[in-house]
């Protein structure tokens, strides 16, 4: 394995070992750990069984002694968001797990005037996610089958058929730091506060972080954040302290439905593939894995997800790309530009001498 070297691929413009981009079979090795490091671990968050209990959010805050929201215990700062049951909003310095709640409804045309709902004047609640690209197939499936009661059983198991005239989905998903194979935050950290652990996870050391904030824009998911009034950045450590003691992360331990599964990444990937196949078999056409693909823009995630809709629906970027991917090209361009400037400068100087 390649060890850490000053001949960075970013400068050389060559990345044959995928140190900046692409699949990386041994992230710890690439980070300089010798061969007998532990297996890479991760989270597989299966949102199809999430019940939105938020036990993960609470367990995380309890274990990591995170402050309450940004309110620091002040009553008036917290308030109802008005966004379904999500009052946390997003991942941040004080929320390392965040459960998203997405309400989706779809009216079904019912040729049953005597039993119809007052659907004609129905308005959007303002929070329902606009119909995604998968709508057509679902709506078609429903229209052709709504009066065939047997077909009710064939609906997406995550879709509540509420009455005969309306389909409701209430998607819930516990988001977390993705612990990327190519972690932008880590790559740009100038102090070494962010580091790759022997478990393959990415952790900030709060006693080294100087609050420069370079990592914040470099995260393609918007996970890492500076704490207000403190300046340093904080994010999920996958309970590094627990892992070193042979325990599982707090969120996975608290999850009552095994929506959050912790384990060796390769085993989780196999489990996720099987789960996806099962759901597809059951006709859940919208199910997909997110962050599972090591050919994606960040080389795959240590924390990946099974989603039931497009990533954007959950507030996740559809095509995240590690910011360092383009470093070689940027350095190349920068180098070319430098050479050009140098050339122009030289010729200018030389030319002027000639003129003299």
């Amino acid at each position, binding site marked *: 394995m390649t060890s850490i070297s000053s001949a960075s691929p970013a400068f050389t413009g060559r990345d044959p070992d995928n140190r900046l981009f692409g699949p990386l079979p041994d992230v710890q090795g690439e980070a300089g750990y010798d061969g007998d490091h532990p297996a890479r671990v991760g989270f597989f968050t299966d949102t199809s069984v999430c019940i939105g209990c938020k036990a993960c959010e609470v367990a995380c805050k309890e274990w990591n002694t995170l402050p309450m*929201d940004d309110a620091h215990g002040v009553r008036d700062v917290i308030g*109802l968001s*008005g966004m379904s049951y999500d009052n946390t909003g997003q991942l941040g310095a004080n929320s390392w797990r965040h459960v998203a709640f997405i*309400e989706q409804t779809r009216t079904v045309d019912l040729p049953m005037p005597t039993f119809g709902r007052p659907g004609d004047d129905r*308005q959007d609640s303002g*929070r329902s996610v606009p119909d995604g690209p998968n709508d057509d197939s679902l709506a078609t499936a429903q229209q052709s089958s709504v009066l065939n*009661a047997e077909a*009710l059983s064939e609906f997406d198991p995550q879709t*509540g058929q509420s*009455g005969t005239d309306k389909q409701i989905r209430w998607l819930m998903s516990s988001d977390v730091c993705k612990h990327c194979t190519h972690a932008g935050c880590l790559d740009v950290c100038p102090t070494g506060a962010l580091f790759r652990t022997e478990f393959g996870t990415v952790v900030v050391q709060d006693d080294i972080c100087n609050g420069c904030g370079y990592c914040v824009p470099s995260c393609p998911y918007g996970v890492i954040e500076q704490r207000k009034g403190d300046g340093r950045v904080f994010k999920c450590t996958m309970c590094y302290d627990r892992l070193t003691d042979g325990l599982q992360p707090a969120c996975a331990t608290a999850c009552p439905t095994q929506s959050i599964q912790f384990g060796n990444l390769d085993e989780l990937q196999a489990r996720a593939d099987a789960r996806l196949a099962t759901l597809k078999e059951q006709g859940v056409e919208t199910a997909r894995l997110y962050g599972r693909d090591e050919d994606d823009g960040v080389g795959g995630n240590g924390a990946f997800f099974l989603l039931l809709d497009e990533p954007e629906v959950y507030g996740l970027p559809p095509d995240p790309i590690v910011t360092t991917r383009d470093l070689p090209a940027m350095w190349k361009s920068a180098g070319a530009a430098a050479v050009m400037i140098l050339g122009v400068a030289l010729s200018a100087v030389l030319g002027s001498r000639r003129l003299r």
Partner: protein
Amino acid sequence: MPGLGASFGRGGATNFQEDLANSDCIVIEGSNMAECHPVGFQWVGEAKARGAKVIHIDPRFTRTSAIADLHVPLRIGTDIAFLGGLINHVLTNELYFKEYVVAYTNAAALVSQDFIDSEDLDGLFSGFDPERNLYDEASWQYEPEEPPHSGSDDPAGAAEQDRKEQDPEVKKTDKAQAAGSGGPPIAAKPKRDETLQHPRSVFQVLKRHFARYTPEMVAEVCGIEPEVFLQVARWVTENSGRERTTAWVYSVGWTQHSVGAQYIRTCSILQTLLGNIGRPGGGILALRGHASIQGSTDVPTLYNLLPGYLPMPHALQHGSLDEYCADAAGKAGFWGNKRAYMTSLLKAWWGDAATPENDFAFDYLPRIDGDHSSYRTITDMIKGKVSGYFLVGENPTVGHPNGRMNRFGLANLDWLVVRDLQMIESATFWKESPEIETGELAPETIGTEVFFVPAASHAEKEGTFTQTQRLLQWRHKAVEPPGDATSDLWFYFHLGRILRERLADSTDPRDRPLLDLTWDYPTHGPDQEPSADAILREINGTGPDGRAVSGYMELKDDGSTSCGCWIYSGVYADEVNQAARRKPGREQGPVAAEWGWAWPYNRRILYNRASADPDGKPWSERKAYVWWDEEAGRWTGLDNPDFEATKRPDYVPPEGARAQDAIGGADPFVMQGDGKAWLFAPAGVVDGPLPTHYEPAESVVENALYKQQANPTLERIEGPWNRENPPLSDVFPFQVTTYRLTEHHTAGGMSRTLPYLSELQPEFFVEVSPELAALRGLTNGEYATLVSSRTAIEAKVLVTERIRPIKLRDGQVVHQIGMPYHWSYSGLSTGDGANDLLGIVLDPNTHIQEDKVSTADIRPGRRPRGPELVDFVEGYRQRAGVPSGRVGVNGRDPVAAEAGEGSTL
């Protein structure tokens, strides 16, 4: 509790939550299991992963619906019509489990010819007394096979008890709750027609009773389209029978109605017809709302019960131990040993002072003389009849309906002891309640002296919880309680000790019960903490040799045994704390009988004799659970048999057999007088032997089935502080339902003070449909004001399509408002109290309040402040034709208000 008790003989959940994994279909109705029981919900997930269908029937689309295969939005308060529709579907299409029904239920029993069904009396049963709003249940009896009480050791005494049982004064005390473990006593076993064809057989009575509950009627009453109804019917019936089982799950979404017990009765009838009781993956799960709610009725905090569901003696009925036991003495079933249970309880409490000569100190027990249930007591407080009150883990000014009335009650005490983890609203009502702003409460005139005593939390003390599935689990103390906080055990033990010391020299006979108590529990540690272990052993009971008994079959009525709660007998068998066992599931079978201890006799599925056919063979290999082993001559299987282990399946009781010996070998419901599951309840439910759909007390819809609008026997509490919204009122045109969220705990004392929970649901809100929002001009995230005849409250609005209006067949649109009830003025997360909006009307069986359904108006904006609020609400009352709700200071003084009558003083 009476719902299950009268149907099967015990009031507890029939199955355990882990067993849901064995279900082929799970119906969750009247419960939001994923939100309120998230840990137990993993077994629903497990069942689903194994291919089970999950149906959620609920007015709201909740986090439970999100995981279910099918959500059925039904109009609030119409579950009996829906379940009755399923019963009719099963009977009409002959989808019931015939062999099971004939052998194990009272379908073949004949009902008295005096009985007249509600179909023939437009919603009333025979025996109704319109003056007292009570039933005389005499005409609901079986046609006896033998002279009444001939199976009794004391026929005359039993008949006399029967007569007194119908005394209105006695009826007020909710004797039905005594069916928690032991079915209601019956006079005699019934005549039977095994062909089920006799017109007065229970089966035919049932058929006629439910004949009008058709899919079309379900659509009309519940607002559920026939297609959806039939889908539910198909899934449920296809997944019931020999090879498959369906489980039903309910919680307070059923119990908190004016016909709550009958909701559960309807489900019991359906599950019995389908053959789902006593079998793995079947049953009815009553999910309890707190860690030890099952325990709080087993070793009761209820005024009308003693431990093990022995009824509290009544002044008019129970002059002596003989009279107390006469109704059950020697009769078929385990209630036949009532005297042994009672004598052993008296011995546990009064030890050597309980002797045969003094009736084992039976007269030391207080007698009840009427209704002293929680809400009646609040009324009595306002009227100045109650001087002191203990609140232990209860926050009534937030958690009870009609918070204002509850605050008036507390304001009229002499003293109040509040033991809680936090300074809850029920301890600060005298200085911070909303009525201080309106001028209705005046701190300087409130005489109540409040003692706040900080309590230890569950992690700071040892003892047992008895949870949903009757499972006792011991918890060890993890940390010392902070500061002055102490365990409840410590508090009551030392309170008793000090009282006894103060009275030590008393010669007054009234002090004997206190002074003669066995109060010698060992203590330990610097704070003299009593031993919870010793108390559990006392509850278990000891035999003549002083050793712990192994179960209630060892208890005697001669005073040689003692037992603090007969149904818990066995929890300390072999001198081992069985509740503290924690053998992991992976080291034992899925039934995990060595994890904790379940009453009775560590049986995990009740009535599991019914998992085998009458001959003792499993109904199917797939659903084998407990069966007869002919070679060994005993019942065996995966669980402890809920049956006498060596009673043969072909056992027929000989002439004159007593108690359990009078139960046949093919009668699985051993706590019932006839050994059968009751499709028709000849006793034990005060508002009818069969469930009937009534509209809630506050409904905006007319009863489509009967002229009788609401439960004719529902209990009202009348006073200016508890005005009722008239049914079908234009002034209060919307239905309201209350509920809990995962993020908070009941009245909030354990969650609104915690930052991590408060920020997850930071404010009081109500959920409304987009249609209602448009109708009333409500805006998501803004305030709305809700108004009832009690008061007006304000809440943030959450507009969501998960709440939906129900359109009935005649075109009427019923709007439903969802309202979580966790909030009040204290803590980090605050808001008005949802329960302040509600009035108090009660189920006559249980005295449980109907807070799952009421009516209100909703309008945009915040509510008026101060005295203007009183005028505002009074204006609503006037427009609705409701008497004045004005009260004097502290709710007590009569008010000669221009608006109407004053308080009832």
